[in-house]
């Protein structure tokens, strides 16, 4: 699989030295400074093709899947080796496969490694590392978002294949993905958490349509899919039939870890850095750097940015130290960002005043600033809303009792009927 045959015993420092030499010889140095505020992220076909080629190059060099098992195309090395590579690679232009790239490596591949059949892993993991397979999550239905186990997209078994019908939404990057990891209902006549199963759905299969949705920013990053009698081989199933909820827990866990920046990478807390650069720049534009209220907004935003990272470092340390609630505490990071970003964005609009509301055509900085405002509730809603995180933290970390649930002891069909004919809890 790889050009560089790595002896299993290669030391981190040897590996680092090899990586440095390889990076110098093969990749370009990064020159642009990373901007904090999210801009438009819609990707072109040509751009993604270039990035896939770059991923293939990195894979051939032996620097994709550093910690993955050798039998699936990885290097079988430790996290320390991977961190050494990432540290060396940070000044180089590495493959950017966008949100689907992140999802593929951090969520899909990890879920497959844990739950998929040997045959499935052999078929998909190598191409994933080589940039040949990009994946999206086909998770929420239009009618089931936070209530994920309430999906109604249905797969019916017919011999050695399944027939899929339904619809998915909010699937980031699906418009350039090759597969979607799809949560489907395979039994309506058992309790709702018991009738779920996961499938790999090729986006090019007959009966699949993927349509980017135009967002409030004007961007088109997430998609809606329609499935019309899509035929899927049983070998593309991940996990047991009816065992989809357990797999879903892994998917959500990997998703949370990915969105919190990964455990080990946040352990070392770096300093606060420059004072909230986007806000200071805007305050300079509007001549408000001396305004006491503006200064308070700038300082509290800056402190909030640092506090989120300090919290991440603490949570990572607590997990490694054996916190009794385990990985569930990572939800604190998600909730912290989900609460902080909207507050920060509101402060930013105060700092900007009129300059953040109207600008000369072509003023990209002002546009980026306003997009930051529109994007500020992404984390509060996507990947498990603030409310879902609060339930998880309240119940799994603080040990608070669950709300009464009205879907226990009923089949999913009965749950759907009860919801549509709701008359209180009587």
């Amino acid at each position, binding site marked *: 699989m790889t050009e560089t045959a790595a002896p299993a015993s290669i030391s981190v420092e040897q590996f680092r030295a090899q990586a440095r030499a390889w990076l110098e010889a093969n990749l370009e140095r990064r020159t642009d400074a990373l901007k904090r505020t999210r801009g438009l992220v819609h990707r072109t076909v040509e751009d993604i093709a270039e990035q896939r080629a770059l991923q293939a190059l990195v894979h051939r060099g032996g620097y994709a899947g550093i910690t993955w098992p050798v039998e699936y195309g990885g290097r079988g090395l430790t996290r320390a080796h991977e961190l050494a590579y990432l540290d060396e690679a940070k000044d180089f232009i590495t493959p950017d496969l966008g949100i689907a790239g992140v999802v593929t490596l951090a969520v899909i591949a990890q879920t497959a490694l844990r739950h998929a059949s040997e045959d499935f892993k052999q078929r998909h993991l190598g191409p994933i590392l080589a940039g040949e397979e990009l994946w999206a999550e086909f998770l929420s239905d239009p009618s089931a978002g936070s209530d994920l186990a309430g999906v109604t997209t249905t797969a019916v078994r017919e011999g050695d294949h399944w027939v899929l019908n339904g619809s998915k939404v909010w699937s980031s990057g699906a418009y350039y993905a090759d597969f979607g990891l799809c949560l489907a209902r395979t039994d309506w006549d058992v309790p709702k958490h018991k009738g779920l199963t996961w499938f790999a759905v090729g986006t090019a299969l007959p009966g699949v349509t993927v349509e980017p949705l135009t967002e409030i920013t004007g961007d088109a990053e997430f998609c809606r899919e329609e499935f019309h009698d899509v035929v899927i081989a049983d070998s593309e199933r991940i996990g047991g039939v009816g065992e989809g909820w357990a797999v879903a827990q892994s998917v959500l866990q990997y998703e949370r870890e990915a969105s919190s920046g990964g455990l080990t990478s946040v352990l070392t807390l770096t300093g606060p850095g420059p004072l909230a650069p986007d806000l200071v720049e805007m305050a300079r534009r509007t001549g408000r750097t*001396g305004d006491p209220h503006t200064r308070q907004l700038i300082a509290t935003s800056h402190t909030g940015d640092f*506090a989120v990272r300090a919290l991440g470092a603490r949570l990572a340390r607590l997990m490694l130290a054996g916190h009794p609630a385990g990985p569930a505490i990572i939800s*604190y990071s998600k909730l912290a960002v989900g609460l902080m970003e909207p507050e920060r964005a509101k402060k930013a609009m105060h700092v900007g005043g009129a300059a953040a509301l109207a600008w000369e055509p072509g003023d990209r900085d002002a546009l980026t600033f306003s997009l930051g405002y529109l994007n500020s509730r992404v984390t509060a809603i996507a990947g498990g809303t603030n409310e879902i995180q609060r*339930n998880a933290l*309240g119940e799994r970390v603080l040990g*608070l009792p669950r709300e009464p649930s009205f879907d226990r002891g009923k089949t999913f069909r009965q749950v759907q009927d009860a919801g549509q004919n709701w008359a209180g809890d009587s």
Partner: protein
Amino acid sequence: MADDASRAAGRWIEPDRRPITDPVLGFFDESGWSLTEVRALAEAGAVLDRPRWSELGASGHFLPAGGEQSLARSAVVAEEFGRALGQGPFVESVVVQLALSQLGSESHRTKVGPDIVAGRQLATWAASSIPGYWGSGSDVQAESSPAGFVLNGSLPMVLDAGAVDWILMSARDGAGVSQFLIPTGQPGLRLDRLDSLDITRAFYTVTLTNVEVPVTSLVGARAVGTDGVARQVRTALVLATAMTTGSMGHIFDVALQYAKDRTAFGRPIGSFQAIKHLLVDASLKLETSRAMCDAAAQAVDEETPDADEIVSMAKAYVADAGVDVAHAVWQSLGGISYMWENDFHLFLRRITTDAALFGTAQWHNERICELHSLAAQPTGEQS
């Protein structure tokens, strides 16, 4: 005491902190330091219990001798002190000890300092006397005299000044700002007890009227300046912040347990999302406060160039978070929080006072901007 039997029970403490927390908790348990005692002292006027404080000093767990101990370690102790709602000039004593060991004369280092560490002598620190800090506006003037210096001025809210032997304070003369250690019995020094929101602590206004002090009372060089006391300021901020997080931690745990035990409408109130989410948000602020304390202590210990900034960030964050957490607890306890006999109000009073001591969040926010040299632009200048 019933409230002490469970001091460490039900708490998960990071394994690497246990060598620090276990002896401190053991000391509180064995010597009977308890909320019952804090309450009894508060109701009796909160005058510092000298024998109790001496016992704490003599235990060796609290005051670092010679300022050798890492601030991270002292911060863990401070958190436990705040959790126990400890009474007495803990932060101030550490700062005095640090000042004497770092800057003090031979006599300061070999006599007064060790006496303070051992609890034989008591000292407090008039933090508000450092010009330019905390926004206190206080300014004690020093004048050279044949015998040394003559001090005049007034200092607000000096903790336990009426019960200690020494006060460390800053004063300004033509040459700059100097630091003095003054015995509380010095003629011309007046100590007026204040009534206060926090009834677990005793604050005093210290008034100096032609107080004559010898040159040997200088701690550090004459005109040591505010930079010379920077380490004291950082230490005080980290410890005060850690103390607040300890107090927050205790009342949060009380509210959490109450939410599990108290039933209404046929179910534990903690099963209602309205209460559950309120407590989760409070616990997020508590965890973030702890993270900020850790970061601040580490930055000071490692003397990073941004230590002053991180310390101010931690103080500003915890000042607001502390009050927010106290109010979330207040709301979730409901009516019982208004009973004098419920300890909640003692913590509410403490945490709200902590928020402003050593500088409010707003003061530290402004300091953060100044540390980044964020200057006002001349009128009309817009780029």
